[in-house]
């Protein structure tokens, strides 16, 4: 079966303009040659720190932004350059959930109107009782239909956003940081809900988050992004157990673990410095300026994604030794590590 979504060499470049003359002074490459596939029924995670291009990638694959280069095939059709009119039927199957539930809901519209909007957009009308059923499905009550967004808590508002995305039974839902604005307990509820809905509606997700714990909870495969490129992609358990890219290992090691014994035993700072500006990226490997393993070659030649273990691809000239799971210095960097005394 063909994958549900295939993105090939996606590029998004934004012109940078002088603040007064508006003259184009250069270009910022937010997404720099990203290739991804989403299989039917799977959840692909996209992780990385702010500015790594994960949200821009989301906006490209949902065609909320026009790609500068590359192709996007969704459900067997090339949607890369489709106009809004031809995209309209495609949008039934391709939905999105946003980070801030309140700013993605119109404050003047009742929940009923918000949930009817996808139908209206497609020239349809919800069946009687369909809105009530949607609300029930996401854990709200039918009488909530008459309320306005401000009458809800953050978690409830996010449930409305989820109901809206599911209204037309889409095939793919792109979730852009769906839980990062929520408290942990509410976050857990939403993650559980997303999982239940996936089973019930046979959904595929692209799940974007900077929180590796949340990503690990819901994703089957994970792509790690850095400065507009995918630096590593693997199945979840493989990625967490054997991170091959030094950036992935550093990212894992920096996630605080809520256990003082473990947390205090780990080295805390694994990466020095800041993310370079995407307007002025380093030559060669984008990560080399912060990489503990960087060598001369890294400045000259940009590494491409190459397969190590089956299904595990990494863009690095000097990957951590994945065959052993832990390389000599990777063992200290890669978190989580076995408890002391373990073989």
């Amino acid at each position, binding site marked *: 079966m063909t994958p549900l979504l295939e993105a090939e060499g996606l590029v998004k470049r934004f012109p940078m303009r002088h603040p007064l003359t508006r003259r184009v002074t250069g270009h910022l490459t937010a997404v720099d040659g990203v290739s991804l596939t989403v299989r039917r029924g799977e959840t692909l995670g996209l992780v990385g720190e702010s500015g790594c291009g994960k949200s821009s990638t989301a906006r490209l694959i949902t065609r909320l932004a026009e790609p500068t280069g590359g192709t996007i095939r969704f459900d067997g059709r090339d949607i890369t350059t489709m106009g809004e009119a031809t995209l309209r039927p495609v949008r039934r199957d391709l939905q999105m959930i946003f980070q801030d539930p309140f700013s993605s809901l119109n404050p003047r519209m009742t929940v009923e109107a918000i949930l009817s909007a996808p139908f209206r957009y497609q020239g349809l009308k919800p069946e009687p009782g369909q809105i009530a059923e949607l609300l029930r499905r996401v854990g709200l009550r039918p009488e909530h239909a008459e309320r306005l967004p401000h009458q809800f808590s953050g978690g409830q508002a996010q449930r409305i956003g989820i109901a809206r995305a599911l209204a037309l039974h889409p095939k793919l839902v792109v979730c852009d940081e769906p839980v990062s604005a929520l*408290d942990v307990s509410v976050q857990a509820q939403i993650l559980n809900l997303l999982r239940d809905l996936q089973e019930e509606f046979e959904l595929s997700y692209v799940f974007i988050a900077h929180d590796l714990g949340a990503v690990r909870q819901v994703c089957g495969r994970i792509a790690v992004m850095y400065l507009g490129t995918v630096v590593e992609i693997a199945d979840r358990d493989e990625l967490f157990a054997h991170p091959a890219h030094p950036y992935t290992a550093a990212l894992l090691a920096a996630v*605080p673990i809520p256990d003082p014994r473990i947390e205090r035993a780990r080295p805390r*700072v*694994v990466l020095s410095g800041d993310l370079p500006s995407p307007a002025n990226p380093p030559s060669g490997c984008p990560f080399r300026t912060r990489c503990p393993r960087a060598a001369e070659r890294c400045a000259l030649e940009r590494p491409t994604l190459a397969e190590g273990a089956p299904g595990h691809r990494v863009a690095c000239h000097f990957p951590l030794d994945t065959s052993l799971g832990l390389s000599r210095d990777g063992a200290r960097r890669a*978190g989580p590590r076995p408890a002391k005394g373990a073989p």
Partner: protein
Amino acid sequence: MTLLDVKDLRVSFGETRAVDGLSFSLERGRVLGLVGESGCGKSVTSLAVMGLLNGATTSGEIWFDGQELLGSDRRAVRRLRGDRLAMIFQDPLSSLNPYYPVGFQIAEAYRAHRRTSRKQARAIVVRMLDRVGIPEAERRARDYPHQFSGGMRQRVMIAMALCLEPELIIADEPTTALDVTVQAQILALLDTLRAEYGTAVLLITHDLGVVAGTADEVVVMYGGRAVERGEVHALFEDPREPYTRRLLAAVPRIDRPVPDRLETL
């Protein structure tokens, strides 16, 4: 020795009770983590200690080094604030003035409490910026907040908070707006500086992982009260209260097998 002693603090805004009978104390040089979800009253507590609450009804006592703050007049609190008590906020961009260079702003804070020449203040600013890990401190002191990254801006805030060598720093979600790798850098920096200056820290956060790595003692808040408190190892190993237990279980952890469903409250 007790530096900060909060007794039966109550804060309400009209009918809403934000803090409802909270007591805790903090020793010199120690780190107390105040954790809880949004609306539990943790930030209001920090503002109460700093004397920055407007339009709120407060009762109870806040003792700082033998001086009661809630009943003190504003001028006395102002003399302490910034000098012996300092604060670091979540969002450094909105706590720095975009119109002035960062060095100017740090010097301003310093000279509000110490009689020094501009030149002397300037030297202290550069030394502090260097101390918090800002490269080329001399030149960077003349830069404006927007010219710094999020992590660098938080370093500037830390330099500002520490330039007067306060006895207590209140850090309200100091790393929440930062990426994990930068968060790790800032937490390590706070740790080093705290040890060097012997500063006590009241760390306010929703992140149990950050507390586990940083705090000596923990107070878990819910609905304006402390539901559980204890030494950090004891509290994480054997949480007594159901709320604490469920809060811990709700965090997806990367060092444990993936559960089928997450615990919800």
